[in-house]
């Protein structure tokens, strides 16, 4: 069943094979940044520090997986950070205050995040509202619910199950965080799904042209709904990583993570116009942000310059995307 569907798709949309080279630019930027900081500091290139960088991007990196799915369909999700924030508070509060078994609290948190994603998807598909507006609304709703439900209180004293992903194991002589491995594994799974399955091809096709996708027999509405719900589940996993990383349920967490995740996606070479890009590019984009932040800090450069440089890189990435789009037309 899968093969005929993709075959039909290939015929309908000729530009479906995405050149793997589209992550070459971001990868070059990442290696360049690493080389620069290796030369300029004596602390950057150590296993402990590189493991730290991956651990520092695991939350935004995971969010950015969901964000990549939605941007590939030519949508955008402003609500991801707020949904994650609510999921995190829910898990923490259910486990600590309500006394729910920790694993059940985790499942509940991830489920609720999935429901938020489903709500986004329903509004986008059933009422045909623009994703920007839908997710802006849900951003505010999730933000408010987080503060109402938490009563503005940070929740500490979490059971060990909730923070387990923040623990480390030795790899060689470096401590690696379990959450980092989970994030990398999720990138692997989604890279496979997007490149090797019919579902992945459908996602790209919808982003290229929903109308053409519909004409080739792709159930566009159902796929979109599924993608938004799946993104929500991914945000739920990010919520678990968030509380594991900081060790507390923090009602103020995630406020700028929506834009940070979009930044990672864009730096990774994924087109905001949909249909073009690789989820591994997003990983590179997220790592690039982390490396710049960490490296500049090790050099003693104030953190405001990290924001400046990230801004410049975003403009560069979008410019490259725009120029290459024009060439291929």
């Amino acid at each position, binding site marked *: 069943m899968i093969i005929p569907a993709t075959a039909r798709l290939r015929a309908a949309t000729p530009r479906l094979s995405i050149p*793997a080279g589209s*992550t070459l630019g971001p990868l070059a930027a990442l290696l360049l940044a690493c080389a620069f900081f290796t030369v300029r*500091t*004596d*602390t950057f*290139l*150590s*296993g*402990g*520090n*590189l*493991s*730290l960088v*991956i651990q*520092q991007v695991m*939350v935004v990196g995971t969010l950015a997986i969901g964000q990549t799915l939605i941007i590939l369909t030519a949508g955008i999700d402003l609500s991801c950070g707020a949904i994650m924030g609510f999921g995190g508070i829910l898990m923490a509060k259910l486990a600590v205050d309500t006394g729910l078994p920790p694993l059940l609290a985790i499942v509940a948190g991830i489920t609720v995040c999935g429901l938020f994603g489903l709500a986004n998807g329903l509004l986008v598909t059933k009422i045909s509202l623009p994703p920007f507006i839908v997710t802006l609304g849900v951003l505010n709703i999730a933000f408010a619910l987080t*503060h109402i439900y938490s009563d*503005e*209180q*940070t929740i*500490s004293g979490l059971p060990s199950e909730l923070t387990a992903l923040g623990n480390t194991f030795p*790899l*060689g*002589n*470096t401590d*690696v965080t379990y959450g980092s*491995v989970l994030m*990398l594994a999720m*990138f*692997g799974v989604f*890279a*496979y799904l997007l*490149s*090797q399955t019919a579902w992945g091809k459908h996602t790209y096709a919808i982003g290229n042209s929903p109308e053409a996708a519909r004409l080739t027999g792709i159930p566009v509405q159902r796929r979109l709904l599924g993608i938004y719900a799946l993104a929500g589940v991914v945000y739920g996993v990010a919520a678990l990583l*968030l509380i594991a*990383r*900081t*060790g*507390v349920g*923090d009602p*103020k*967490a995630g*406020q*700028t993570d929506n834009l940070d995740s979009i930044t990672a996606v864009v730096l990774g070479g994924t087109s905001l116009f949909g249909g073009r890009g*690789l989820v*591994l590019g997003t*990983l*590179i984009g997220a*790592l690039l942000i982390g490396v710049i*932040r*960490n490296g500049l*800090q*090790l050099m*003693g450069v*104030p*953190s*405001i310059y990290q*924001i400046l440089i990230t801004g410049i890189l975003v403009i560069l990435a979008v410019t490259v995307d725009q120029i290459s789009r024009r060439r291929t037309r």
Partner: protein
Amino acid sequence: MIRKSIVLVLTGALALTACGKGSSGSSDGGAVKVGLITKTETNPFFVKMKEGAQAEAKAKGLTFLSAAGKFDGDNEGQVTAIENMVAAGVKGILITPSDTKAIIPAIKKARDKGVLVIALDTPTQPQDGTDALFATDNFKAGQLIGQYAKAKMAGKTAKIATLDLAPGVSVGILRHNGFLQGFGAATVDATATALATSPQVVCSADTAGDQAKGQTAMENCLQKSPDLNVVYTINEPAALGAYTALKAKGREKDVLIVSVDGGCTGVKGVQSGEIAATSQQYPLKMASLGVDAVAAFAKDKTKVSGYTDTGVTLVTDKSVAGVDSKDTKFGLDNCWG
């Protein structure tokens, strides 16, 4: 092709960490490093604190690192900054915690690695989460303007509006409660963890210490209680916003505004009469004391501990009997921002 590149990137990422040098935070030789982490980069209070720390670090021959959260309340940004500074091999970290509870686990990790951590301006919860605290006594800062306002309002019935900070932030609670205690409007002490209430308070609103939000809050309070006559504000930007709202209603002459901070713009506001009095605090002193403590720790392992009050002074040009104060000339000589 794609599958191969997936495997390549992922194993590459892991392999990089595995074959590195292994240890982090080991800085050998070179100058002693000290880090400062503020709530934001933009608030003049923190800008001044950073300048003070930088100057003192230079004088003591230390290497100075700085970082900040992206917004007030950005705990994860501060956690990241702590981790990066520990990786950079700092001897000590000075921090104004954005979230006084949530930052504790990250501070504990740094202290476990032998880094001296000192809270500036804002205590952590619990306060012994850090090695030491250099801060203004915010309850006393509130008390001073409370006592001042009480003396100024002698004989009149006070109807108070409080323009507060944000829910759950200890600095805002301490100043608010200090003010009400000093005014004699509420029986409360510095250990309370929630905003005190009083029948004399006719309106309360959060401003996040922001001028525009202070103005909006004051406008709404004037709608609710047009006859209010005392305004307590969390800081001077909020006070100046309140003044703008009062002026629009022609009420600026008969409403008393008191505030906390002692920034240069704020003291000028006191000089021109927009603000009646303000409690001045000293971020430069917090920063330089903090850097000195890290320098001493690096030299012979002496650890500071406990709370050091960096002082607070009531600044006004219309002094009242029974409440000690300094004039705006003193205020301007010692202001920040």
